[in-house]
């Protein structure tokens, strides 16, 4: 499936900003199942210094520096990607979750990089209540993918997708109490839980097609950035992406930007500005099917 993505982020400042330094995770990373046909990041006003590179996780990163006074700052990310996620393995054929946890902890062989995603991170710390909520999905000996699918579906069922009730810094405990939030909250919640059970879990940042093509279900995600969970199924099956907001396994409706331990590692656009006063942020994402 080929998608064209256009992601516009715009800051309007009350008073001019004299200096701005921004870090963008806005170019989709190339993956075996995701071919990047085109990816560009354009800023207005023109930046005084720019650098393109990649980060520790292998994501593509762009640094943008402005040193002329500006009242608004806009970044347009434009990309065309071809995604073909492989079908998930048969859940019954995956190893018991305890075995996966053991492999991850031993961190030997193929598991050494997965071990990075075992530990608390600033936005996905361990939480006793969250672990208790999830425990029903992890009876002893259950195949890991069966447990994951069960948890993924429960979060979809038990939590309400609602914009505006949480922010980028709402803690997991509060999301759990309110039983509502957005994709980012559900993703952090699920990551925290998986790590509590010793399973490596990462935060995947990207986009989802919300307008259904013929005969498909409408997906939640509000035409904005999207986030979901990457879970590790052991050395044989590797990583699999699950979208708890929609209760599905990621297949052909998602586009990956990059991943990290949590939102903080792959924030689409973050920056430090001097001056500016009050600011208004607007974000628009368009994702549509494209011809090859």
């Amino acid at each position, binding site marked *: 499936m080929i998608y064209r993505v256009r992601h516009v982020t715009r800051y309007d400042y009350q008073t001019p900003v004299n200096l701005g330094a*921004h870090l963008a995770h806005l170019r989709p990373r190339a993956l075996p199942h995701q071919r990047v046909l085109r990816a560009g990041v354009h800023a207005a006003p023109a930046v005084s210094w720019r650098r393109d590179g990649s980060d520790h996780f292998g994501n593509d990163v762009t640094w943008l520096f402005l*040193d002329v006074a500006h009242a608004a700052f806009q970044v347009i990310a434009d990309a065309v990607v071809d995604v073909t996620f492989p079908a998930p393995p048969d859940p019954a054929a995956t190893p018991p979750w305890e075995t996966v946890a053991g492999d991850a902890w031993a961190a030997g062989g193929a598991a050494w990089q997965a071990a990075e995603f075992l530990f608390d991170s600033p936005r996905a710390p361990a939480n006793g209540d969250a672990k208790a909520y999830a425990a029903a999905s992890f009876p002893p000996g259950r195949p890991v993918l069966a447990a994951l699918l069960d948890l993924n579906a429960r979060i979809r069922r038990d939590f309400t997708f609602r914009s505006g009730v949480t922010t*980028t810094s709402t803690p997991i405990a509060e999301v759990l109490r309110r039983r509502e939030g957005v994709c980012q909250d559900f993703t952090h919640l699920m990551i925290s839980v998986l790590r509590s059970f010793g399973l490596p879990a990462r935060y995947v940042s990207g986009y989802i097609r919300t307008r259904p093509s013929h005969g498909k279900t409408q997906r939640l995600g509000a035409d904005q950035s999207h986030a979901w969970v990457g879970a590790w199924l052991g050395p044989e099956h590797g990583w699999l992406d699950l979208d708890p907001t929609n209760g599905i396994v990621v297949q052909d409706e998602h586009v990956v930007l990059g991943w990290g331990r949590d939102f903080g590692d792959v924030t689409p656009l973050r920056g430090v500005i001097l001056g500016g006063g009050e600011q208004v942020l607007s974000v628009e994402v368009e994702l549509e099917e494209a011809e090859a």
Partner: protein
Amino acid sequence: MARDEMVDGKGGLRPQWRNLLGVLAGLGHGVLAERAKRLDRVMEEEGVASLLPGSPPDPWRFDPIPLPLSQWEFSKLEAGLTQRAQLLEAILADLYGPQRLLAEGALPAPLVYANPAFLRPCRRASGEAPNDLLQFYAADLMRAPDGNWHVLADRTGLADGLAHALQNRRRLGRVLPELFGSQLLCHIEPFVEICLDMIQRISPADSGDTGRSALLTPGHQDPAWYGHVLLARELSCALVEGGDLTVRDGGLFLKTLRGLQRIGVLLRGTDGGSVDPLELEPDGVGVAGLLAAARDHVRIVNNPGSGLAEAPALAAFLPELARRLLREDLALPSVPTEWLGHETAREKVMRNPNDWRLRPAFESALPPATLSAMAETNRRAMLDRVAAAPWRFAASAVLEPSVAPCLDGDKMVPRPVLVRMFLVRDRTGWRAMPGGLGCVLQDEVPAWPSAGQVLAKDVWVLAENPAAIEGPAANRTGTLAIRRTAGDMPSRVADNFFWLGRYLERLEAAARLLMIAIGRVSRPAPTPHEMAELEVLIDCLTQAGLLNAEAITGLGTAALGHALLKAAGSWGAIHAMLGRVSHMTGLLRDQVTGEMHAVTARGLREVEYALGRIDNRRDGQALDATAQAMSRVLAFSATLSGLAAENMVRGGGRLFLDLGRRVERAQAVADQIACTLEFPGVAQQPARIEHGLRLALELCDSSITYRSRYLAVLQPAPALDLLLADDGNPRGLAFQLVAMRALLSEIASGGDNALATAAAALQDEPQAMVRSISDAADQSVAALFLPARLRALRDAVAELSDRVSRRYFALLPTARTVGIDAPSRPLRGAA
């Protein structure tokens, strides 16, 4: 049984102590204790502690008895520490590069991935091993009962304590010179040269001739600040805070009076995680974009990610890693350490818990905890925490550090000691400073105190062959490159000098005013004319913030006297002004000479003492004590001005100090003369202006000059000429304006001269005012029109001062993070 550094347990002295002990014994009774007191006093005057009494004590104290090491022993330590530095560097290069140690299982993943000191933005995405991770390395060492040295903690920060070690050696040389006559000692100064050479060498080529080095400090509230001040001075680099810096076009720049100045090497006096709010901690003290700049155009020393090597748990793996990475055995062991993430290690430790001390696996600043010394409930809680996440903990073996003689009163007592040694990378490898910083332990847990007082010792390396004394460093480093020292002052420093000038002047003016007022209230029965003078003085005192006018109006001289005592006493307005002067002097500690600082410190203490004598005295005596205290303040201010004139290079700092004084005095003089010209009753009886003029002359300390020119005849034009228009009178108005113009044009030094031009424009007004008086038919009546003009001039000076601030000081405004953690903004989807 702890090992004794001095005696060998068989009744003999160890050879390295022989000469030293001979000298100490020969000093005579009580001499050592007396010298120790002098050492304390020297430290006080050097301003390690804050200047005002009652502020917290200095974190450093020094024991006068050195700890000598033989050269043979030092060489062994240097070799061992060099190997450790190489090993840690190789480990860091791997972890911030290909991470083979993790892939091959040589190092457990949690030690890296769960460690907050592993800074992911410092890792090369390409997996290519970086080669610029360590330039400084330090280690805390202890000697075990068997005589072998062990490393307690590896340090990759900014050689914390190095400057103190250098300072202490010099102080000891001054206070106890006898000690140094007894033997040949390795010099530690050449080590500084090697550090300077390193900075020069690693400076990126493209930062060019103008590229400078700077030391980034979290600021004066940080406990390590004074160490940063000293080190910046030793290494001739600018001491800067995050707000002084900016990243432009991929380079790092310092905001100075002359504009942006390129920085090539940044010495990091902060945590690695706080240097760049864009990529690391959003609330860090550093500068946004620093890491991006550091990828090409700036060297940060040590690399922000290097803190990873300080993890206490790493010690458990060093012997194996040394064999793997260096193909050598680890020469200088750590205190035996186990990482509790391994089950076998856990079992080993739990089998004999009293043989171990528990410590966080990643946090080197926290001291280890001895299980056997804990109360049962704490012990249980601790063990539960370990059981819940054993990989967060390490255990180090209980090992008793050696003891060395320390001075206690007038006796020498053996106390446990640690030694910190410092290494720097030179052109060929690692070099250790032949000396170090000892630390006398206050309790049984061997760990460098992270808070509270450190009782430090000078560590000596005895020179056994004369070649060592010549300074091997100088030979090995070859010709030193020419250094360009910090000629251009950071704006923040200029700002501090300017305000020190203003506060000093304000203090002096306040003291002068109080003296004059007190002289009047202490007279038994004031005449109506004296009462009128008091009225004017109350106006002046109110303007100066020394009195609350409403509270005084209509009350007698007794109440006024009371209010004056309050303003002068311990918690009054004078005290507050003194506090501001002291604060500014503290902030400028890195900018003034030791002598100047010592005089300031002593002066401030004396004044403070004199102010304290005002309280709790009966009225008459208290007024007398106040007069004495105020004359102390005046003497203090005069001394400081004199010192500045004689001692300070006529560079940026001195100019701004002077400018601050002139700006302040010009405003005060204009204000006070305006008040005196409004002498009670002048509107009805213009001749009464004579009383006002007399008071004005007194306030401006110009009575004697007037009398020598005009004898006893007091007339408006000659008096006002002396006070307002005579630019030779340093207490008059014209003098300040002329000086302001000269200073501003010197500061601009050929550049944009607009401010000097603006100051020059102000100079004409006092002349015009005096002319309007002397040309008038009735001078007294004409003088009635001056107060308004004087106040307008005062406002013009204030405006000029604002322009100076905007032009030279306007610091970069506080940076803010956007895109993450904006709680006020509701999230739509995930922005």
